[in-house]
């Protein structure tokens, strides 16, 4: 980390840049967890400052909430960009994401659940990234994390075939005791008026010298827009995604990575049984007018029908101010996959105001 900062600060080209953009945002909000007989209210605010230069990018985030007595500072981005002949090099704290439009992306470098355009902390890593563009739509990439605890690296090839965005990915992460490697292929394009995408992933877990578990994950998804009033009116956006996960010990590790450790996986192990686990996700969004939209996101384990439901409302109040309201509700029995966690709230509500500058 220190080495990266020294490199950035000593890079004269960074500060010789003539083009720069400064900006950021201020957020304030209230987050409430509702339990059986009580609720936990948490007020928070954050300040994000961004500086983008031709050959560098910096983003600093300061966060505070009512449950803490100090401000957390987090350096989201601090990296330099350099072109070495035909290779683009980025070095430093940077987002590494191989998203391609799915709601959950098992093929991504940073394994994690994420809705399109949302950010997760896992994306921001200290890394060296090399990208070799072959033509306007094809490239080869290599990423390696600079991390003292584990070694992680990945390769990605991306191209366009018959208007389908195709990627081939390999990611390897290892510690002294364990290693996880993933091979994945993703595809995204159009079938008539519908967007269509899919991915296939093979995951190999090695725990110690003897234990090795393989898991496969298949995903298919589609999205569609319906425009009212002969295609000139408000928009209804529909997205659906089906995941089929091979069920074994590897799945447990995968689900923990995808959904977070708090989800009731321990309680639901007996439910999983042998075979496969399938999950269905939906994302519906309706533009009320030019400024506001309402939507609902769901994720359902088809085996026990436990479901996470996240309705949301967004309103751009002014040029620079946006209001976001969302709720999270988990339905299902105590032993179900999503609702089986100990100490899980019944409902989570969040109201947030963002001012961009």
């Amino acid at each position, binding site marked *: 980390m220190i080495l990266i900062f020294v490199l950035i600060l000593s890079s004269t080209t960074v500060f010789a840049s003539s083009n720069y953009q400064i900006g950021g945002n201020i957020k304030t909000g209230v987050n409430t967890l509702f339990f059986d007989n009580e609720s936990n209210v948490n007020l928070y605010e954050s300040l994000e400052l961004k500086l*983008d230069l031709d050959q560098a990018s910096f983003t600093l985030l300061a966060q505070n909430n009512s449950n803490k007595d100090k401000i957390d500072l987090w350096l989201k981005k601090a990296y330099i960009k350099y072109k070495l002949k035909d290779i683009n090099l980025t070095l430093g704290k940077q987002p590494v994401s191989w*998203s391609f439009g799915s709601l959950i992306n098992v093929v991504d470098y940073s394994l994690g659940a994420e809705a399109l355009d949302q950010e997760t902390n896992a*994306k921001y890593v200290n890394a060296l990234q090399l990208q070799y563009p072959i033509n*306007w739509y094809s490239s080869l990439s290599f990423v390696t994390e600079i991390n003292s605890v584990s070694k992680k690296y990945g390769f990605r090839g991306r191209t366009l075939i018959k*208007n389908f965005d195709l990627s081939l990915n390999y990611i390897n992460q290892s510690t002294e005791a364990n290693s996880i490697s993933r091979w994945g292929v993703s595809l*995204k394009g159009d079938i008539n008026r519908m*967007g269509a995408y899919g991915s296939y992933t093979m995951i190999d877990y090695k725990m110690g010298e003897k234990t090795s578990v393989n898991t496969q994950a298949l995903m298919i998804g589609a999205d*569609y827009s319906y425009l009212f009033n002969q295609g000139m009116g408000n928009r209804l956006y529909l997205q659906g995604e089906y995941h089929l996960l091979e069920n074994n010990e590897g799945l447990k590790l995968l689900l923990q990575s995808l959904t977070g450790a708090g989800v009731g996986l321990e309680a639901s192990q007996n439910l999983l049984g042998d075979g496969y686990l399938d999950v269905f996700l939906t994302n519906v969004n309706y533009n009320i007018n030019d*400024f506001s939209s309402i939507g609902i996101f769901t994720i359902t384990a088809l085996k026990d029908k436990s479901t996470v439901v996240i309705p949301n409302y967004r309103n751009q109040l002014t*040029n620079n101010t946006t209001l976001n309201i969302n709720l999270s509700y988990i339905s299902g029995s105590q032993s179900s996959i999503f609702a089986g966690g100990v100490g899980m709230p019944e409902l989570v509500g969040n109201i947030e105001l963002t001012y961009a500058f």
Partner: protein
Amino acid sequence: MKKIILLLILILITFNTEISAITAEEVITQRDENEYVKSARVEATMIINNSGRELEKKMISLSEGDTALIEFTNPMDRGTKYLKREDNLWMFFPDAEDVVKLSGHMLEQGMMGSDFSYQDMMESEKLIDLYNFEIIAEEKYHDRPCYIIEAIKEEGAEVSYYRRVSWIDKERFIGLKEEMYAESGKLLKEVVVEETEKIEGRWYPIRTVMENMLRKDTWTAFIIDSIEFNPDIPEGTFSLESLQ
């Protein structure tokens, strides 16, 4: 004297005959040549109005043929970029630094909440290749003499509107108003050019207002703050690499 008057009348008749003999295709070709941009760099402001409530978005665009790269620069959308190549639309999300190929149906929607669809914004094909034209009237529009030209889409052409009626300035060959219709005959959108300017020898629309006739009390103004025709565009600008 009578001979001179007769000669003058003949000249005037001949002159007038020549003017009215111009075909709709020739008017559209001249307008296309005037308004069609081989390549350009544009800095623009988009004002979205809905029942008196307004949002303002700023952008820089580079275009060449049917390829365009747009970057938004207003604080709320700063860093968001779009790349359109033929029918493919790609988007760059600045926070996550992701490049995602958008589904084709997104091209039909209003760009960033405006009344301009992605296709309206990035449509650079010459209309002469897509429609059949006819002059249906001649009249003054805002004190400018205009041809009123009806365009019906050519069979098999992939266009956003079945029929367009345009008011085209007779002298400057610039469109001043346009109505876009569905095949059912319903008026879908109306575009009015509120301000024009002579730039590098050609008249060009500077402030254009588009009204979606199927939505109540909503319009979007597209204002060109600066434009440079045929700029030097580095090789590789219209690539996924340059989106990042």
